């Protein structure tokens, strides 16, 4: 079977759920080979083995973390030259997409981003599914030239365990001076909220203009459900909630099991980011708000009254 490279997404050795999803997808296409960049490969090993990595290639050159994405793309190019993979899978986040973009140019290969599903297809290579035009269309695509490079969105697959005991192979990469021209000079970690990651959460509660700037009821309801908190562009532009939590075309695209839109009218900008959610619920004072066209269940009412009462009831039932 052919090798399929998976770039491991991790924080200091703690493997993100998306990596388990990528390894699960990789097993449909061939033998998953994990590429681990940075410190902490031994900490990551159990998780990588659990989801079927047959080998782990570790790259620990410190220059890989100091300078943005260009060195990582160079490193992957060198790994690809040795492993000759039939496909390369990378998480579809800002860094992953840029690495993939550079790699596509380096390897003369076609690139597909933001896949929500990847299947083996026929001998012509993997077939991807993407959701486009604000979720109004679903397209299936394939790469027709070179090594298929595919960035995959969170929740594209349900992680399935397939225990292996992969060996770690240290791999020396040489980074060119040209790749070291954009440098990270300062990094301030974001404060942890204790809530699930927006793009990975099963339930999201989002607030918009209707909150009037008070996200308290939205956060409380989210916490009662164990949900992540999101915000519309209107709320972010008003400075009520940080941009990192924005759901929509210029923020995150999410596809949770349940999406609750509170005080969000449902402009195209916002729909683009949440339209593919499984179940959609809205609370809005305006019965004419376009968000009600999308919902499975809607409450016409003031979120400042509805959410606190609902939070109390949810907490009571869960107790």
């Amino acid at each position, binding site marked *: 079977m052919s090798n399929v490279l998976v770039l491991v997404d991790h924080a200091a050795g703690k493997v993100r759920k998306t990596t388990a999803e990528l390894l699960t997808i990789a097993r449909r296409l061939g033998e998953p080979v994990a590429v681990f960049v940075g410190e902490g490969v031994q900490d990551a090993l159990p998780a990588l083995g659990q989801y079927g990595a047959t080998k782990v290639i570790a790259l620990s050159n410190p220059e890989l973390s100091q300078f943005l994405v260009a060195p990582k793309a160079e490193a992957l190019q060198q790994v690809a030259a040795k492993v000759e993979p039939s496909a390369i899978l990378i998480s579809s986040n800002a860094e992953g997409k840029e690495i993939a973009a550079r790699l596509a140019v380096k390897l003369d290969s076609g690139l597909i981003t933001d896949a929500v599903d990847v299947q083996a297809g026929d001998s012509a290579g993997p077939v991807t599914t993407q959701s486009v035009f604000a979720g109004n269309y679903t397209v299936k695509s394939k790469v027709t030239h070179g090594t298929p490079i595919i960035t995959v969105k969170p929740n594209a697959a349900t992680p399935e365990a397939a225990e292996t005991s992969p060996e770690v192979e240290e791999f020396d990469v040489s980074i060119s001076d040209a790749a070291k021209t954009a440098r990270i000079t300062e990094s301030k970690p974001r404060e942890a909220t204790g809530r699930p990651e927006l793009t990975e959460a099963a339930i999201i509660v989002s607030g918009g203009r209707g909150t009037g700037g008070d996200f308290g009821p939205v956060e409380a309801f989210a916490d009662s459900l164990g949900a992540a908190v999101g915000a519309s562009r209107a709320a972010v532009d008003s400075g009520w909630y940080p941009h990192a939590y924005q759901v929509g075309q210029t923020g995150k695209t999410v596809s949770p099991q349940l999406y609750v839109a509170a005080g969000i009218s449902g402009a195209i900008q916002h729909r*683009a980011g949440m339209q593919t959610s499984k179940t959609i619920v809205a609370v809005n004072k305006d019965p004419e708000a376009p968000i009600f066209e999308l919902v499975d269940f809607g409450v016409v009412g003031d979120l400042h009254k509805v959410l606190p009462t609902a939070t109390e009831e949810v907490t009571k039932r869960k107790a």
Partner: protein
Amino acid sequence: MKIVVCAKFVPDATADRRFRSEDNTVDRAGVDGLLSELDEYAVETALTVKESGDGEVTILTVGPEQAADAVKKGLQMGADAGVHVVDDAIHGSDAVATSLILSKALAKLDADLVVFGMGSTDGGMGVVPAMVSERLGLPAVTLGSEVTVDGQTVRIRRDGDTASETIEGTLPLVLSVSDQANEPRYPSFKGIMAAKKKPVETWSLADLELTADQVGGSSAWTEVVEVTARPPRSAGTIVTDEDGSGAAELVEFLSTNKFL
């Protein structure tokens, strides 16, 4: 300083967007189009850099005849000149091919600072800035939410998922900005009138020493094999809150659907 904004002409997101049935490419000809909203932030950044020092701002676009409107919008906002790369053979180009065309044009323009928006509002891949940087061998600082140009150094703040980072590079350089970077200006009446006299050049593939077989649908490295319109969502239940009834019904819905 020669500042070039790479701008894309896209179908209007608030109108009906569709695919051409014959080749599964985005229909750009039969629909209303405009400068991608996210590229307005790039134009604004370029104009601000120019106004705080010296420089000349050129709007560069690749696209069909109508794409000239994207250049015009940039000129109305205050850019100095425009370049429109148009050639029948470009139709169907994917991101890899588009980055090749842009790179050739940027080299010909001898750009010091190349500015992109964070992604287009149609394809939305957001990969072309990195590809252009790779092809031109220039540093890239991307997704800036705050941009400072200090002599030869370009510094941005990028608000990522796990950290807020300061990133810097030296000119010549590729920059992309997010929709948090600024508030794009509206063209003034004076700006709209002045735009009519600004120079716009039209280049073909031959002007960039490219051939038809290097770009376009036939040499794209990805292929859309199937397009399906998303079925409309079936109408849901809407209730009106009266003295707490809304909350009760909401929780009942969540319970019935096993979300509690």
